Each structure stands twice: as structure tokens, then as C-alpha cells.
């Protein structure tokens, strides 16, 4: 065990380099790399520009979708794009003139002058399209998957931003094998887990893909993870839709994230760009021009290179921002000391301490700036939180609907207002009639063109599907004032797993407010101000606290879609426990619980969020274990809703 888990996870970078090198070095000639702009940031996590130069890339360009880069006769152009059909088609269209132009240029087919590297995978039908475009033989295609990018301690991302949209909105599983391959690589590096828990259809399918990909060579190191947990995003929409209360989560709510880094751009942040500019206060929308001149600063969400972020990432926002303010004051005092110093002292100070201090100061100021923008943007945060809490606990639906509608009118945010409605649907169920009224106002606000969004969100299960009116009899029936005791699937599961921590009876049992407060501190629901425990964190703590398979089975009973995979066999938790009792499996019947290896790996299919990550981190600290959370991307709730707008 000389290599720590963290180092191993960082080692994904080495594998990614090795893979990239294999592609680049297989191409002879004077190479130029043309990158799709969105790939640049994640690629920085794989290698440096100088590394690319060393591998024979002479120049690096940004790909311009409008114009093809001219090429000298002896140059080899390597394009690197995401495997998105639209992008690929645009590129093929750009390269189209080659099909007519170059019959005599390259007699040797092995020496192709154009290459397209598709990230994460070159889809099978891309070849067919290449052939149809008449470019077969002129352009060579490649796969490249950088696998997991180590963003922060305990946080991995595949940086595949469109996976949620493809899987959940379009039912297109094209990217699954690539994800499966990355997970398989994780198996090679960190060993096979003794058990895998999957929750949801895509998660189960992912595991199936991994098995179909073939066996993995034995790792020479002992396994690192005791269990894997793979969860579908749609099994826990709530933790994405709720507004987090922790620092990292709120940063992501307000600022654009690109590969583990946020841009602090006040003029154009996520919240501001969601609003209709016209209806903002006069003062707010004028500084746009002046602010865009200065270069926005960035904060890298990596605790290894930013100690302030490391201290605050999973703290409650109020705590974090007051800490940052305190730091600013302390630094100010420190710098004031300089005035009272003797000359010699000053020399020493300037030489030794000052550089560190100024660096720290720059960092602190960036955080200060960021937290101030967050405060400014979130406005009446407490109101939002009580609204969300009421939605979670389904307190007077009618009023909630009215409040959401008022928010739309007076502070309409393209994604966030819709997000509240989705949350309401999840927790209390929105009737088609109610949706109709809201949608009408929404389209007035943001344009008729957004009509499709409602159908898209219905596809993802976030809103009810609108049904055509056919017979009047059916309508009559639904108009009858029958009492409804319906529970949404979310509520049922949340109650079974005890995810809702702020509902009325829980509060009563907790007693007075004084008792509730310490409870808040010892519960992972602090990420949502004590209202909700993210599913991932709860499942982790169940796994880590189970003393035997029976206990696990009783806790996970009645939850549909949850599967336990042990040694190539999958079953429900109950069946697994029963199997152990009868001892029918023969050779290895030892109970896996309590887990001997206390490290867990959590993978969220369709985008994780910082609230989940923070809650898992908290559970890990409580149970003295390590939890690594990985996903295809890190998404704030508004990003999730925004995916429905990509048409």
C-alpha cells in the first residue's frame, strides 16, 4: 500500500497522457492540433501545452465552426472534438472541399493529412457519415477518452457535459460504453470492489456494459474500494433541484463552471443571464459594458492549490463568507504592521513573508468578491429556502403554486423558476391544469419558442405530461372532488430512506429548537439547511453502518430499482440476504458486512452536485471512512434544467 488512493486517482492523468500520446505519435508528419474550444479547459487537466509540443504538435489552434483553418501542403491537421453529432457534421462540412480537391495529393493512404479525435468515443455511425461525405480515406478517425479527471480531493469528473441530456431527455445511450470503459479503468487501477450497489436503469445498464466489455487483468495492488455505488440522477433529482446552502454549491449556482474552475464574472453570471434584462432594476443592468473590459478572475475549486477553498468548500455559506471576511481583516492588520517596522525588519519581512502574504491576499480577495456576488445575486435567500422547505414537506400546495407564479412574474429566472416548479412536481405532483397556467405565463415571459421545454422536462419526469383532451367523460371524472392520498415516487422513497429531516413529526420528536440545532450539525442534511439528506449520502451511510446483510436488507427493503451485485450476480438486497442465510451459493458465502474496506466509490449517472459531494464527505468523516464521488459532470440545478433548452 505504498501508493495512496489519492495518488492513484490522480494517476488517471498519466493514463490519459499515455493514451493521447499513443494517438499523436501514431500520426506522422508536421502536426497541428485544432481543438474545440470547450475541450481546452478539461484538456489542461490532462497535459500542458509544452507536453503537446514535445509530442510533436507544432501549433495549437482553437476550432472555429465558421471557418476552416488553411493548411500548408506538408501539415497534418488533427481536429479534436466532442463526439456530438452536430459538431461532427459541421466539421465534415468544412472538410468537404477536400473530397473534390485532393485526388493526387496523398497517394499513400496510410499517410492521411486529416485526423479527427472524438472525445470520449468515436461513434460507429461517424464512420458511415464519413463515408457518405466522400471523405473516407482522407480523414482518419480516433477515439480518445481521458477518463476521470481529478478535480479535487474526493471529486472526480468525466467532463461529459451532454450526457444528462442524451440519456434522460432523449433516451440515447451512445455515451454509455465510454463511461463503462472509464469505470473499467478504475477497476484496473483500484481493484474490483467486493460489491456494487446500483439504483436505477442506467446504473444497472452501465454495470452490464462493464461486464460485457470483458474481464479486467488482475491488479497487482490490493483493492481500494470496499463497495461501489452507482446512482441514476433521476432517482435523486431533489438534491439537484434544491438550492444548496454550502459554499461550493452556491458558487456553482452563480458562476459558470468549466473543468473544476469558476469564472467570477459579475456582469454575466449564471443568475443574471437567466433574467429578462428589461425587468431588472435600472441600476443593475447598466454596468455591463464597463465590467466586461476587465478580465474576470477565476477560482479553482481544488483544495490542494487554494487553502481558503479547502477550508470552506463544504461549510455553510454564511460561515464561509464570514470566515473570508475575517481573513481579509486579519490580512489588513498584518500589512499594517509594515508601517511600524524598522528598516531592517522591513527588509526581512519583504523578502520572506510579503510574497506569501500578497498571494494569500489575492486569493482571499477573489473569494470575498465571489461571495459578495453570490449574496447580491441570491437576493432573498431565506425566502427561497423556506419556500423550498415548504415544497419538500408539501405544505399548502395552492400557496406554493401562487408563490412560484409570483416569483416568475417579479423575479423571473429562465431556469431557476422552472426548477422550483419541477421540485414541486417531484414532491407534491403538479396537475396538468396547473402546469398549463404556469406555462402560459412562462411563455409570455421568455417567448413562445420555449414551449418545447415542458415536453422535454416531462420526458425526464420532472413535470407532468400534457395529455390531449379527448372525451368529456374522462374530464368529468377528474373533476370530481375525490380525496387524493397519492404519494409521489419521490416522497415514498424519501420516507423509506428517511431523507426528509424537517417534516413536522420529525421536528416534534426533536423537541425544542435548542435540540434541533445540534442535530443539524450531526446530520448530512446541513447541506440543505437541515431539510433534506442527499440520497447518495444516505445510501453511503447505510452501507457503512450495516452490520450484516440482514440489516442492509431491512433498510433497503421496498425500494424499487435498487440492486446488489456481488461476484457477477445481481439481486435485490433482500434476496441477497436470504441467499446468505440458506448458503446456497456454495463456495463463498461470507457476509460482506460490515464492510471491511471502509472506502466507497460513488458514481452518479447524469451529473453530481456539490451538495451531494459535501454530504458524502460528511458521512465519511462520521464513519471514519473515505468516499470518492465521481460523475460525468458537475451540474448545478439550473444546468440540469438548462439541458432541456438545448434543442
Amino acid at each position, binding site marked *: 500500500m505504498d501508493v495512496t488512493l489519492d495518488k492513484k486517482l490522480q494517476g488517471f492523468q498519466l493514463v490519459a497522457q*499515455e493514451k493521447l500520446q499513443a494517438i499523436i505519435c501514431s500520426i506522422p508528419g508536421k502536426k497541428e492540433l485544432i481543438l474545440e*474550444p470547450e475541450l481546452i479547459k478539461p484538456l489542461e487537466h490532462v497535459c500542458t*501545452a509544452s507536453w503537446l509540443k514535445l509530442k510533436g504538435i507544432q501549433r495549437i489552434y482553437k476550432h472555429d465552426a465558421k471557418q476552416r483553418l488553411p493548411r500548408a501542403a506538408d501539415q497534418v491537421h488533427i481536429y479534436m472534438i466532442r463526439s456530438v453529432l452536430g459538431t461532427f457534421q459541421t466539421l465534415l462540412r468544412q472538410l468537404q472541399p477536400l473530397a473534390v480537391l485532393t485526388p493526387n495529393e496523398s497517394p499513400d493512404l496510410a499517410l492521411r493529412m486529416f485526423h479527427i479525435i472524438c472525445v470520449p468515443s468515436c461513434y460507429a455511425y461517424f464512420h458511415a457519415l464519413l463515408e457518405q461525405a466522400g471523405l473516407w480515406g482522407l480523414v482518419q478517425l480516433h*477515439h480518445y477518452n481521458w477518463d476521470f479527471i481529478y478535480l479535487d480531493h474526493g471529486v472526480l469528473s468525466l467532463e461529459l457535459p451532454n450526457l444528462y441530456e442524451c440519456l434522460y431527455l432523449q433516451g440515447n445511450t451512445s455515451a454509455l*460504453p465510454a463511461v463503462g470503459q472509464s469505470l473499467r479503468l478504475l477497476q484496473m487501477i483500484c481493484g474490483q470492489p467486493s460489491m456494487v450497489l446500483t439504483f436505477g436503469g442506467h446504473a444497472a445498464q452501465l454495470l452490464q456494459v462493464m461486464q460485457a466489455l470483458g474481464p479486467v487483468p488482475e491488479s497487482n495492488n490490493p483493492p481500494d474500494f470496499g463497495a461501489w455505488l452507482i446512482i441514476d440522477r433521476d432517482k435523486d433529482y431533489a438534491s439537484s433541484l434544491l438550492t444548496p446552502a454550502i459554499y461550493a454549491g452556491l458558487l456553482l449556482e452563480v458562476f459558470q463552471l468549466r473543468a473544476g474552475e469558476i469564472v467570477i464574472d459579475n456582469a454575466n453570471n449564471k443568475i443574471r443571464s437567466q433574467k429578462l434584462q428589461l425587468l431588472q432594476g435600472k441600476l443593475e443592468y447598466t454596468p455591463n459594458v464597463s465590467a466586461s473590459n476587465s478580465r474576470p478572475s477565476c477560482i479553482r475549486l481544488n483544495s490542494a492549490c487554494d487553502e481558503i477553498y479547502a477550508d470552506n468548500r463544504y461549510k455553510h455559506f454564511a460561515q464561509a463568507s464570514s470566515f473570508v471576511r475575517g481573513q481579509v481583516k486579519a490580512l489588513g492588520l498584518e500589512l499594517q504592521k509594515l508601517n511600524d517596522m524598522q528598516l531592517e525588519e522591513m527588509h526581512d519581512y519583504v523578502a520572506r513573508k510579503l510574497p506569501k502574504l500578497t498571494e494569500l491576499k489575492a486569493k482571499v480577495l477573489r473569494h470575498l468578491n465571489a461571495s459578495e456576488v453570490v449574496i447580491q445575486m441570491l437576493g432573498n435567500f431565506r425566502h427561497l429556502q423556506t419556500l423550498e422547505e415548504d415544497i419538500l414537506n408539501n405544505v399548502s400546495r395552492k400557496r406554493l403554486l401562487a408563490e412560484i407564479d409570483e416569483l416568475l412574474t417579479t423575479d423571473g429566472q429562465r431556469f431557476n423558476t422552472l426548477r422550483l416548479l419541477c421540485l414541486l412536481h417531484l414532491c407534491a405532483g403538479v396537475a396538468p391544469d396547473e402546469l398549463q397556467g404556469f406555462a402560459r405565463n412562462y411563455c409570455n415571459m421568455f417567448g413562445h419558442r420555449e414551449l418545447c421545454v415542458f415536453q422535454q422536462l416531462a420526458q425526464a419526469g420532472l413535470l407532468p405530461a400534457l395529455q390531449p383532451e379527448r372525451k368529456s367523460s374522462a374530464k368529468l371524472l377528474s373533476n370530481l372532488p375525490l380525496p387524493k392520498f397519492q404519494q409521489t415516487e419521490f416522497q415514498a422513497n424519501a420516507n423509506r430512506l428517511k431523507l426528509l429531516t424537517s417534516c413536522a413529526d420529525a421536528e416534534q420528536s426533536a423537541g425544542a429548537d435548542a435540540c434541533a440545532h445540534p442535530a443539524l450539525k450531526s446530520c448530512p442534511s446541513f447541506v440543505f439547511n437541515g431539510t433534506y439528506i442527499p440520497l447518495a449520502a444516505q445510501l453511503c451511510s447505510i452501507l457503512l453502518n450495516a452490520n450484516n446483510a440482514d440489516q442492509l436488507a431491512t433498510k433497503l427493503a421496498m425500494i424499487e430499482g435498487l440492486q446488489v451485485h456481488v461476484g457477477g450476480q445481481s439481486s435485490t438486497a433482500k434476496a441477497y440476504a436470504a441467499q446468505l442465510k440458506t448458503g446456497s451459493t456454495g463456495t463463498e458465502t461470507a457476509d460482506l458486512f460490515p464492510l471491511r474496506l471502509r472506502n466507497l466509490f460513488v458514481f452518479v449517472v447524469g451529473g453530481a452536485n456539490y451538495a451531494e459531494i459535501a454530504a458524502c464527505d460528511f458521512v465519511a468523516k462520521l464513519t471514519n471512512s473515505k468516499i470518492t464521488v465521481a460523475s460525468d459532470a458537475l451540474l448545478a440545478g439550473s444546468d440540469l434544467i438548462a439541458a432541456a433548452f438545448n434543442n
Partner: protein
Amino acid sequence: MESQFDSADENYWNRSSRAAFSFDDDDDPDDMGKSGTISDQTKPSTKWDNGIFNDDTISEASFDNSAALGTLNPLSIKAILSDEALKLVLQEQTLDDHVLAKGVTPEEELKLLRRQIQSTLYSPNLEATVQKLLHGKLAPLEMFKSLQEKQELLDTLLANGGDAVIGVLLFLKRTLNTAQFNGILEQRPKALEHYLSYLRQSGDVSNYIEMLQRFGRHQEAALRQFQAAMACSELSTRKQQLQRLIDAYASAGVGIIPLYEQIFHAALKLQLLQEKEGLSHRFGEHATPIELLFLCCTQNKNWKDQDMLKLTSPQRFAADQDISPAQYEWTALNERAQAQAYADLECIFERVSTWHPLKARQFHISFDLALAVQRLFELQAPATVLQLFLSKMSNSSEKLALAQRVKCIKAVIDAMVSLKQQQELQQLRDTLPDRSEEQFYCENALKSLQSKRWTTDNIKLKL
């Protein structure tokens, strides 16, 4: 996107602790000549250069491949991945593995080739093909001739999912007639989803809509048609297409979703209005109804009695577009306040009570009054306007808090009077500037409060 990259910060690209070397060819004149061939306007944006390379400080001599990431990763790849595994990973990355391994005996080679020919020419090897496709390798599909073989191939792939599903579907489309192909899709909803997703991503709108209709998803098809119509750049074609869509939707007999119908009609009305009145200069092609309402408000002269016959008078427009009263009021409030036409605000929030038309017009607001006050304050409305709105609030303590927040002294005084906070009023009076209007107001309030108290006490005494 471009600007995002331009602003990329060098600090993170090469952390100075990580070794790297400087490139001198970046300012090579020869280099400049080459990039000069790109037309001038794109040159600065397409070239991905200087910024990143500039801060490479360590010289070439110290560059060593493993050291490049040394500080971050002091371990070599061997420590985390065995040679065998790495080989497997790299081999899986390649697209085709037709290359024969070296060093096989002629007999073995013959066997191998025979097997290959067998599987390519005569009987397709389902498992091998599926395996290859799953790994993303090139695999010939042509030998899957019979319908059964094709279906088997598709079903096996569907179980795992992946890009190969679309690949095979395109192959099936090529090699089967439409009836057969559609039959296959009909039985496999998952395959249909994949195919639709493919059509959608490829931007083939007409085919996409046709498939939706064929498989009975008329509502989605109507939505897509609507979207396509709205995307037309020319107003007249947009109008035509919308008209056609509305007619078709009403007569298709597949059921009508009221929301869709309403929005289609509203969109068409909006186009007609834009055509007639030429409204949308300021907001471009795709102005939203609220933006246009805002514009109507700007143009409207007569707020007392709006001309309901004029299409662009705000109330008429709001009625035509089915804009909710709250939205109408909020938009008008913002517009009037921005135009500093505060006198019109009263007209916006006035309603004639329907059951008693002779009664005076009443104040009516469709959203939280506090929000209106807050917004007016943000838009720097004068205190008298704020007071007017604050005076409509019924809850005095809320009113006091809000009035204090928006610094409307008179409303603060009013609220204190209704809360009978005599002491606070006196304190307030002392802080106000001498002989100011507010002080006067405050004194009057105090007097009235005192005198009122006397009268109530008198009544009590009499009783």
C-alpha cells in the same frame, strides 16, 4: 466561448513548479507569415497560443517527460497500472484490430484467416461483432443478411446500449425497405428513441417530424413543427407556417392540448401584429410578449382610458396575448417607473369594481405590494410615490419595516401612528432636520395621536 478562452489564465496552465520549456517559435517571423493566411478578423481568435506558452520559464534542458508532471504525480504509471492492463487500455483505444499478431506459425495464421473469411463471407459471428462494436471498433455488418440476423444483432446491442445501436439502425435503414425498418422500430421503443435522437441531433427536421407522426407522437411532432416555424428568419414565411400548423393541428383529429393550441394562436397573433405595427426593432426578431408589452407601454400616451380598439394599447395587447394581470401590472410598473412617469402608476393599479360601477375606482394589485415598493425604490421613485403604495399596506408592522428599508420617512411616521408608537415618533422627530417637511408631518402626527388618545379616554370615562 472565445472570450472564455481568451481570458484563460496562464497561472493555472503551467504552474511554475511543473517543469515545462519555453518555445521560441511563437514569435518566429516565419510563423507569423503562415498564420497571416488566415483572414485578419479570425486570426486573433483562432490562434491558440501565446498566453499559454509565455509563462513557461524553465529551459528546455531541464525537461524530462516524467518530470513534466513530477510535482503533481511523483509516481510512474507502472505503480498504478500493470503493463498488461496498460497495453489492453491502449489497444482498446484503437479503431480496428485487423493487424495480425507477429510470430504466429503459418498453420495458426491459416486458421485465423479461415475463421475470418468464414465470419465475413458466410455466417456472421454475432457475439464477436457485438463485442467489437461495444469496444467501438470497426466491424463489418454487411454479412447480416437475413431479417432474423439483423433483428438479433439489434436486440443484442439494445440490451447493452451504446452508440452501436444507432450505427446498426442506420445499417438496417440502408438495407431494409421502409416498411420492414419501421416494423422493427415499432416493436422496439428503445430503438425508436435512439433513432429519433439521431435524427434530432443531425438536424434533419423534416424527417424527424415525419417519424414522430408515423409513430403516433403527434403532439411532439406539432411542437417540432412549431419550433421549426418559429425558427424561420423571415416574418412572412414564419406567419405562413404557423397558419398552416394551426389549421393542421385543429383538423388532425388526434386530440388537442389546450396549451399548445393557445400558444400557437398567440404566436401567430404576435407575428401579425409585428407585421402590422413594426413593433420589434428594439428587441430583435424574437421578442417575447412581455418585451413587446413593455414596448407598448412606452408608446402608450393615454393611461387614463386606454383605447381598447388599438392593438398596441397595453391592456388590449395583454388581453390578446393572455398576459396575466400580475405580469401586466409588473411590466407596466417597471416601464412607467423607468420612464419616471409616476403619475400613470395610479391608473395601472385601479380597478372599477364590477358589481358596483358607480363606486369610486379601487386600488388593486395582483402581486405582493412589498415587491412593488421594493422595485420602485430600486428604480429611485420619489418618496411620495413610495408613500402612496405603502399607504395601501394593511399590516402596520410590516409596513413600518418596509418603509424603514426604503427610507420613506412619511410612511414610517404613518406606520408608527397606526402602531401608536409615541415614543419612537418623538425620537424620530428629533433626528429629522429642523423645519423640514418631514418634521412638520411628524409633529402633526404626534399631535393627532395625542388628541385621539384623549377622545378615546373620554369615551371610556363616560361609559
